[in-house]
């Protein structure tokens, strides 16, 4: 039954319910797949014993005629940014050496409560800072898709390990986090579905913090339906996170009616950036046609401050990061490098513990928050952030959802774009604006580049209207019929 790893979450759930296979069998196949694909470096920590134990408990529940929830017995991977009780949690940073949380993050607890089986902790950019998964202390993740002549490509980032694990059939789904595009961009690069829900939809409690006003957890899966199922089990109000929204969790799967007749789809003019690759532009146009054929009404909209989103993000995110990462002091957890004084111990620990990109962002953040520059940078960025948010609100007076590309390119080779931080930051040009506005966005694999690499299209919705986003995404997915799995080999 080697094709158990090719199932979708929905199919696996139905198979488990029908007794076609057990959760232990399903988990064993995925553990074998995880071990066979170690060359991709998608996992930092594998937890096979724990997975089999939880799978066994799932089988016992089903044998007793009950299930814990919608994910009962489903093997998933967890980005190593979520605290998991008794399991090493690193954020891909040297500074968290040996950190084993005595508690479980709310999102992973929710998944556990719904019966999901954790296979392990996936690799990421250090502290989720990156767009290519090349800043991890635990090494680069390799995209299961290959470039010309078998060249190794980046999986995107920061949730690169999660995207690679789902694309390479190591897990049926994975959790990612998205601060400026860290779920959607790697989903696009690896040919999977990735959804960032509305800010506040999933609790941030127990998630290693990067930029608190932006960080959001979300599902990475092989189908839109699977994203809906998984999001349903992750989401929900949590008193332990004051920014967690006191909203009920709708039945996201039920929103997938396949009917978008009369839906108003906005095409933001400003996303047609100068120098946009013709094949991305063509795919976008194709996406418009698909939705139009399904009965949607296409509306041109304007988001005039789009071009300012990246610079706003690269002030706000480092500012929040510099405050959040102040906690790594060599005292309470993780790495400690001795020094003659307390200050020297802090400085030694932090310089040895943090990688180059993290140091760069902490320094930028410290600078923009420092006396004399706070107004010029940080307050200015927050004011422009409001303009960006208002642009979206105005656009959503006229439309229900927006359609854009997910990323400006397909996956690139390891080593490219590494000399210039700003060229790397450009990866998030289409994903950052919705992050700043806190809006839900999803990347749906929609086509292949001329090199045969996956490309995603992004749908952005109104706050707390994931249902419309998922409904439109389902229609896009059906029209795109993205079946090519790994370099067109199919499943």
């Amino acid at each position, binding site marked *: 039954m080697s094709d158990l790893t090719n199932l979708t979450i929905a199919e696996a759930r139905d198979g488990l319910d029908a007794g076609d296979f057990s959760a232990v069998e399903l988990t064993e196949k995925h553990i074998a797949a995880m071990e066979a694909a170690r060359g991709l470096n998608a996992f930092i920590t594998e937890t096979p014993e724990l997975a089999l134990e939880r799978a066994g408990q799932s089988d016992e529940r089903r044998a007793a005629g009950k299930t814990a929830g919608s994910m009962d017995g489903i093997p998933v991977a967890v980005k190593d940014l979520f605290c998991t009780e008794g399991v090493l949690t690193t954020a891909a940073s040297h500074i968290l050496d040996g950190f084993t949380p005595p508690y479980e993050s709310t999102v992973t607890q929710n998944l556990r409560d719904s019966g999901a089986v954790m296979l392990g902790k996936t690799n990421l950019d250090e502290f989720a800072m990156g767009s290519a998964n090349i800043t991890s202390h635990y090494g680069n993740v390799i995209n299961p898709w290959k470039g010309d002549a078998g060249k190794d490509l980046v999986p995107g980032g920061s949730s690169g390990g999660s995207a690679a694990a789902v694309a390479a059939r190591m897990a049926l789904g994975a959790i990612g986090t998205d601060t400026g595009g860290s779920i959607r961009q790697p989903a696009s690069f690896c040919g999977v579905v990735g959804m960032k829900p509305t800010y506040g939809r999933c609790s941030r409690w127990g998630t290693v913090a990067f930029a608190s006003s932006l960080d959001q957890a979300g599902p990475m899966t092989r189908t839109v339906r699977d994203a809906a199922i998984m999001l349903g089990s992750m989401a929900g109000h949590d008193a332990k996170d004051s920014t967690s929204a006191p909203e009920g969790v709708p039945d996201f799967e039920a929103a997938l009616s396949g009917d978008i007749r009369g839906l108003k789809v906005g095409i933001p003019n400003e996303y047609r950036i100068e120098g946009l690759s013709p094949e991305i532009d063509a795919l976008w146009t194709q996406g418009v046609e698909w939705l139009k054929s399904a009965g949607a009404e296409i509306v041109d909209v304007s988001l005039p401050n789009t071009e300012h989103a990246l610079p706003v993000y690269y002030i706000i995110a480092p500012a929040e990061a510099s405050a959040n990462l102040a906690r790594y002091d060599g005292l309470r957890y993780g790495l400690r490098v001795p020094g003659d004084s307390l200050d020297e111990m802090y400085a030694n620990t932090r310089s040895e513990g943090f990688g180059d990109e993290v140091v760069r962002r902490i*320094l930028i953040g*410290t600078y923009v928050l420092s006396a004399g520059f706070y107004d*010029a940078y940080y307050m200015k960025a927050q004011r422009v952030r409001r303009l960006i948010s208002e642009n979206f609100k105005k656009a959503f007076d006229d439309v229900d959802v927006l359609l854009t590309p997910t990323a400006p390119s397909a996956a690139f080779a390891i080593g490219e774009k590494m000399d210039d931080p700003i060229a790397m930051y450009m990866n998030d040009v289409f994903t950052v604006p919705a992050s700043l506005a806190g809006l839900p966005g999803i990347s749906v694999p929609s086509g292949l580049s001329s090199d045969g690499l996956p490309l995603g299209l992004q749908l952005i919705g109104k706050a707390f209207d994931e249902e419309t986003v998922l409904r439109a995404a389902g229609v896009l997915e059906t029209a795109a019929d993205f079946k090519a799995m790994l370099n067109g080999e199919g499943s």
Partner: protein
Amino acid sequence: MLPSAPLYRLGIIMSLDKETVKNIANLARIKVADEALEPLAGELSGILDWVEQLNAIDTDGVEPLASVVDVTLPRRTDVVDDGGCRDKVLANAPESEDGYFTVPKVVE
């Protein structure tokens, strides 16, 4: 390849020099080797020059947006609902002694 973002050098904000980087690094409690200061100053200046384009936007009368969450922060009853888990708190400490975190000597 995408075009690089436009730069608006209005002269309001200066690019960083070596000394400033050293000062920020000290504020952030990160030790930066002397030979690394110059290249780092170049990289950080590049990023700051790039974000300077925001100066060209008119934001008069625009309130800063710190959070996209519209709700008033919830309150809870002021009671102790956590704690009593000293061993768990200390479990990950690189060094601890007699139930305390330890630090290098700070009092002469």
